[in-house]
């Protein structure tokens, strides 16, 4: 699956890739922060492809020894907020400063009838983890999510 949820029409900026038991998510962007935001959209799409209204905002701050570990921290911060607040998120704004991250998530409470959530992410993993500048101004951020 790939999509344009929350991005300019026609620009595919995230995708899912297969894993034996779980699912891989990958975000693309002009900056590492944008790749992180797009990967977060891919994370939401693991749960639902229904519209998620950006009604409530939540901020998270994470830190890690390197950019790849920071990416996993970012995804796990979202998974935590989804689980504790029983929310889904559809808009993300990230700033990355070295190995520190500040993110804002916008979303709404899970509505089982409307969102029909397919599965619950348990955690982002270090499997197939890659955050890289692919050249020609494209960053990618990817890993497998355990569901």
């Amino acid at each position: 699956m790939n999509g344009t949820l929350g991005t300019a029409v026609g620009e595919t900026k995230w995708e899912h890739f297969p894993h034996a038991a779980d699912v891989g998510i990958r975000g693309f962007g002009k900056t590492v922060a944008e790749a992180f935001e797009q990967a977060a959209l891919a994370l939401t799409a693991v749960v639902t492809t229904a519209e998620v209204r950006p009604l409530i905002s939540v901020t998270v701050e994470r830190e890690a020894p390197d950019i790849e570990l920071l990416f996993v921290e970012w995804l796990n911060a979202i998974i935590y907020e989804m689980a504790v607040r029983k929310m889904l998120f559809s808009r993300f704004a990230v700033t990355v400063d070295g190995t520190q991250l500040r993110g804002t998530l916008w979303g709404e409470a899970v509505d089982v009838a409307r969102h029909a959530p397919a599965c619950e992410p348990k955690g982002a993993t270090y499997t197939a983890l890659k955050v890289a500048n692919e050249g020609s101004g494209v960053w990618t951020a990817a890993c497998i999510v355990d569901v």
Partner: protein
Amino acid sequence: MDLARFTRVDEMTWRIEPHGAMRVPGIIYADEKLMRDMDDKVYEQIVNVATLPGIVKASYAMPDAHWGYGFPIGGVAAFDAEQGGIVSAGGVGFDISCGVRTMLTGVKVSDILSVQKDLADSLYRQIPAGVGSTGAITLDAIEMDAMLSGGAQWAINRGWGEARDLDRIEEGGEMVGAIPACVSERARERQRREMGTLGSGNHYLEVQAVTQIFDTDVARTYGLDEDDVVVTIHCGSRGLGHQIGTEYLRDMVIAAKASGIVLPDRELACAPINSDIGQRYLGAMRAAINCALANREILGHFTRRVFAHFFPDESLKLLFDVSHNTCKVERHVIDGKRRQLFVHRKGATRAFGPGHEGLPADLRTAGQPVLIGGSMGTGSYILAGEASAEPKAFSSACHGAGRAMSRHAALKQWSGRKIQDDLATQGIFIRSPSTRGIAEEAPGAYKDVGAVVAAAEHAGLARRVARLRPLICIKG
């Protein structure tokens, strides 16, 4: 998988000779077809596990092995603390103490048919399942600590279970050595409103019919007969376990990096058993085992309430409750010497054979029930542990069918609504908040569970006792 990379020891035993940094050989138990179909990543992961410090005898994989995180799913490895052995958060997995319980209902298939739809609807209403579901139970800080120490015993003390269940739960329902203080605030917060919830993904509650008995004597001991109805619950330690897994995996990765250890795969992050972080992880992991035991006990209680409404003359009796994602301290005989080992089972079920001291008296002759979940359409199995599983794989067997296809591929191939309708015509009622979730868990996305359990039996890990067919499946 390329079979040329293995030494075939016997029909069911495939050996990877130690090479490179491997400290011990790798061994897979499977038939030739399962081997050929197995992911190449399984080979790589078995080899990686064999390089870890303090590993004893071999790095094992069960017939249902597939690509996991660091360890293969279906992996078994034991470590000796006295020889620098390690404990690995990845070797246990994110869903700590994920496991299966099967309860006998006293009801026959013919009793169910007239109420099957109502029973399915009632279970679906009463068992919180899926994303966004909240249990009826909220824990404050004191109750959280009591649950993390007390496991199923705690649930029973609070009125959510029956004392007679305890004998039929691993560790008597209460994992000793849990250290609630090693469980973070974030892990607690994730669990505060999740007790008595099923979760999602491959977790389920099924009402099943016994369709075939393979071993009449053991089946009698277990209380199983053809056309009996049982209830099987597959789930784990919910958000608490996931958060503990996430946090300790990160801390172990960072600790490894800081001490200059180069890991072949970050998911293999581990710490010496005799280290501060190793001990803290063990304390937290055991608390998560208690959380899973308590959770399954509570779900069993909810199920009993529903059944009592439909069948007031029957009471549900627990056959067994066993986990397949754990690290347990066990004593095993290695080269004639009894040693204390830390046995990691990642997607592998403990399978004590007849006579094992760890079994309750009424199961000691038959061996431990080994509960194997299949897919929604194909059914499940109840096996009995074999004594030969002890020297072969530290008393371990398979845990399920194992996926043959990714969620991604399953979603492309099937419609959840059509699967639900097709299964209904076969007398299998699926209830789930998500048709996409049903498609991702399509029966065709799983390996043939029959081939997996036959391989486990032929390899001498566990023998078949009964086959089960689903009647009702509640999926998160």
